């Protein structure tokens, strides 16, 4: 309750989104993570401007050149070169574009299917609900990475197949989140009130239920995004996803893995790139959760 605004009736009433943002801002760690993530995203978008070299060009005279801060390093190759003389920095920058955009595709695919199924199950009759949920339970019962590996093994390695596999693995989480949220909402008195206003099912969903189930879904989206990046990289590392010479982060790691003993930077730097991307996304997700699930006072 805000008795001050009794006198200033025309003051702007902050929207729910603004409230979420103002709470998110207070969490400094999440804010830093957001900045880091935006930097990664910008790098991915402007990858071809930022990358100094062609990621597949081989500079045969500079094989295993250490990063520029080593004595033997050259400023031309900031993060050094790999075993056939390709510029690591350029490969990572273009890898960022690849990883982030692939993860985005995966999340869009799995969330649209998952949320759709979640809505269907929560408004459908007992049998359809049971059928969909048992299928989801079946997918959830198998460890996600193993399931992805199995799927790729069946339909063959390659980037598109890896995307389908990871998307499939993520779908049940969206179905569960959506279903639980809607089930909780459906018993609320304001939903009954809306039914008594004569609202049709679509109107009921979009005007009354959707604004209230948005927080768990948005939070699920961020965690699905980080999971997607990790799983795509893992499949790439195992040789089941993107294939060399494609500059995908997992593929870069797997190619350099054998030379770890004498060219450690070719492993640590891509590893750190994955680590910081995931960390920033997860921290943003945590911040969002705290901001969106606060009790409204």
């Amino acid at each position, binding site marked *: *309750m*805000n*008795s*001050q605004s009794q006198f200033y009736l025309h003051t702007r009433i902050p929207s729910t989104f603004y409230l979420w943002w103002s709470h998110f801002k207070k969490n400094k760690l999440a804010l830093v993570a957001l900045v880091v993530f935006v930097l990664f995203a910008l790098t991915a978008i402007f990858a071809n401007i930022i990358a100094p070299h062609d990621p597949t060009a081989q500079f045969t005279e500079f094989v295993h050149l250490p990063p520029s801060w080593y004595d033997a390093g050259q400023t031309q190759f900031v993060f050094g070169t790999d075993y056939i003389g390709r510029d690591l920095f350029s490969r990572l920058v273009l890898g960022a574009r690849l990883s982030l955009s692939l993860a985005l595709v995966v999340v869009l695919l799995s969330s649209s299917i998952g949320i759709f199924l979640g809505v269907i199950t929560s408004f459908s009759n007992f049998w359809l609900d049971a059928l969909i949920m048992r299928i989801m339970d079946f997918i959830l019962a198998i460890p996600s990475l193993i399931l992805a590996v199995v799927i790729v093994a069946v339909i063959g390695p390659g980037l598109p197949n890896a995307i389908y596999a990871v998307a499939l693995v993520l779908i049940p989480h969206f179905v569960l989140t959506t279903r639980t949220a809607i089930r909780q909402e459906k018993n609320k008195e304001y939903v009954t009130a809306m039914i008594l206003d004569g609202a049709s099912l679509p109107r009921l969903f979009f005007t009354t239920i959707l604004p209230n189930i948005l927080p768990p879904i948005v939070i699920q989206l961020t965690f699905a995004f980080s999971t997607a990046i990790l799983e795509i990289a893992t499949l790439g590392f195992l040789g089941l996803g993107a294939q060399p010479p494609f500059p995908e982060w997992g593929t870069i790691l797997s190619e350099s893995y054998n030379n770890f003993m004498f060219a450690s930077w070719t492993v640590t730097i891509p590893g750190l790139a994955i680590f910081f991307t995931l960390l920033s996304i997860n921290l943003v997700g945590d911040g969002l959760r705290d901001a969106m699930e606060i009790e409204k006072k």
Partner: protein
Amino acid sequence: MNLLHIENLSIDLKTRSEPLSIVDRFSIRMGEGEALGIVGESGSGKSMLAMAIMGILSPKMTMKADYLSLDGEDLMKMEENDRQHYISSKASIIFQDPKSSLNPCFSIGSQLDETLSTHGIHTRSERKEKILSLLDSVGIYQPEKIISLFPHQLSGGMNQRVAIAIALACKPRLLIADEPTTALDVSIQSQILDLILELNKRDNVGIMLITHDFALLSENTDKIGVIYSGHMMEHAATKNILEDARHPYTRSLLNSVPQLGKRHTKGSRLYALDGQIPAIDKLPVGCRLGPRCPKAEKQCVNPPILHSIANHGKVRCHLADLKEQSSSKKNNHSVSGG
């Protein structure tokens, strides 16, 4: 000797900037075996007061007092641990919702057993006997059958009886009942109230009955304190309050309840104070009732103090004072509110 003696108890909520006052300089004395009613709306700080006396305020709150004694011992001079132990041996509290104050994972018997063993009854058979007699004393029929049941198997009224039995386990001198009947069904409410008052008469337990409903207090309490927005507004004998309330807030509370026997005729309205209780971060200047008070005058921007009025009690209002001066000229305005 006073059972409970509080002088200038203040409770503040810690915030990033200034602390916010929830209860402001509250003073009260309760005699042995007295039944005191505390009336106030939600947000008036009445529950915080109960928790402060029991020493179970949340760490977000700070509490200070000039003097706070329970059954003759000064609580402010005790060590933290001793104080908690002492309070729990002298006073008990029952809450509004018995379901949430009982642990759903343990049977009624084992919860009572636990409480008794912390209060120094060490043999199992002794405890068992005590449990049965406690349950019997709160009017539970066939207590042997109840002890193995769980809270969810009992009705709300039964659960509240069990909660009272647990509260009585330590033989308290003071029983604080915070809205004990609000969550219960109408026909059960009077039974629980009767039970609490019977304890008062039979065992001479001091009762502090916290409620928002005057009707509960009318026949059952010796004194009533009316709290509004953290201030004690009026404190007097029940009879004086019901027949001759001096504070405009007390009067409005009494008048806003429909009187039995007065039926609705076209156009008749209940007396209602406009507006609502102020938020604790936006307290008005001067008298806290000021903006809502139908009788407010210029002088009400100066905070009134709680002062005694002869043949009545204590009132925090400038206007109660004026009215009194005309009828009985010289009475000692001893200031106790500060």
